[in-house]
């Protein structure tokens, strides 16, 4: 099972320390919430976990069965949903999914699997058929990002405010999927300020910011 270790991680931006000497051990099969007020470094922590940012001090190591994962192997197992993540606006939902699965080298979806996936994230296939993502509502886009994550077979989920811009049913779906992923052995790191999302977590990292 995959695990992620933050050892004495510090991150600064323009002289301002955002995260200072953070150490944590995250295990597969758990949801870890990252909480803290705006600007406390939640998104920064997730970006460091996604290897999109490097820590200034300390290190982040991913292991599977005790073996350290190479950068490429680790990247191939990450799935990310953040406010800065966007699907291609000039492609349809189906084309986006086909692209990301091909790019990820994951198995393509059959028409039935595609319908099931859309239903799982609360999108109706006739609602999105033939429609470019640029014409989707914000909530529909967020649901599509979650569908990409689900289809990508990632086993390290990095979720930054995944319920933002979603209605009650959508937020409930996010909580359910995060829990289901952890129960299936995936590692879920969930940055949130939503008490209900926090409640599905097994552990919590509280960031105070500096």
């Amino acid at each position, binding site marked *: 099972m995959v695990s992620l270790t933050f050892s004495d991680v510090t991150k600064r931006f323009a002289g301002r320390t955002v995260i200072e000497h953070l150490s944590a051990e995250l295990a597969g099969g758990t949801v870890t919430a990252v909480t803290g007020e705006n600007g406390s470094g939640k998104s920064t922590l997730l970006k460091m976990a996604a290897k999109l940012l490097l820590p200034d001090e300390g290190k982040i190591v991913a292991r599977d069965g005790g073996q350290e994962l190479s950068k490429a192997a680790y990247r191939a197992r990450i799935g990310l949903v953040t406010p800065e993540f966007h699907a*291609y606006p*000039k492609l349809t939902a189906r084309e986006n999914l086909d692209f990301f699965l091909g790019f990820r080298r994951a198995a393509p979806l059959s028409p039935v699997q595609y319908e099931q996936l859309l239903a799982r994230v609360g999108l109706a296939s006739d609602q999105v058929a033939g429609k470019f993502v640029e014409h989707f509502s914000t909530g529909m886009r967020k649901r599509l990002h979650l569908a990409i994550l689900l289809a990508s077979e990632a086993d390290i989920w990095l979720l930054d405010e995944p319920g933002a811009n979603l209605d009650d049913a959508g937020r409930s779906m996010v909580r359910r999927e995060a829990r289901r992923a952890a129960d299936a052995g995936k590692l879920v790191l969930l940055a949130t300020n939503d008490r209900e999302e926090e409640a599905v977590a097994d552990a919590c990292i509280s960031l105070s910011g500096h």
Partner: protein
Amino acid sequence: MHASLYRAIESVFRKEARISLRSRSSWLVVLMFALTTLSCVSLLMQGDILAPRLAASMLWIILFFSLLAGAGRGFADEEQAGTLMALQVYGSSQAVLFGKGLFMAVLLFVLSLLIVPMYLVLMDIAVASWPAFLLTLLGGTYGMAMAGTLLSALMFGAKVQSGLLSILMLPVLLPILLPAIVLTASCFAGEAVHGSYLVGIALYDAIMTLAASLLFDFLWYED
């Protein structure tokens, strides 16, 4: 090449093609640039014949500026659409490099196939050796596209303005532009084609492919 990497490259290539066809404006600009240059020069020539070297130079200058207009968009469009993060997280850098590079190469080659017949008719030029001419176009556009993709990624990685792309592009592309111009001039003039120039273009393409493949990870990822 590993079958799954091939699939990832194909996915990037197909995505580039779809988006490019749907956002016609950028390629219309490139095509219109080529057409405007051709029309102006042919009208100004008033029936005079251009010297083969000059004609060959002009053809490659048109292709060079077409590349500049297109290559600069490669990563800038991704940044504008906010899709860079998705590309960085969900797949391999090599798939991005070769998917984008090959798409740019195909696009430049297709563009040259559109421009060349018009160019030959308007400038009243006859090509003596079509196989050598097409090989030159193929090798030249491929090398230019790979170099353009790598430099475009460099601009994106360094977060500098795209104006620098045109400055960096010239010294990087000169080693392929010069033999391509000489070979094209030979084809236009009906002279014997020197195989060494074709070998030079092939070598440039191979070195650029290898260098781009080795360097791209450093540009694409922070660690």
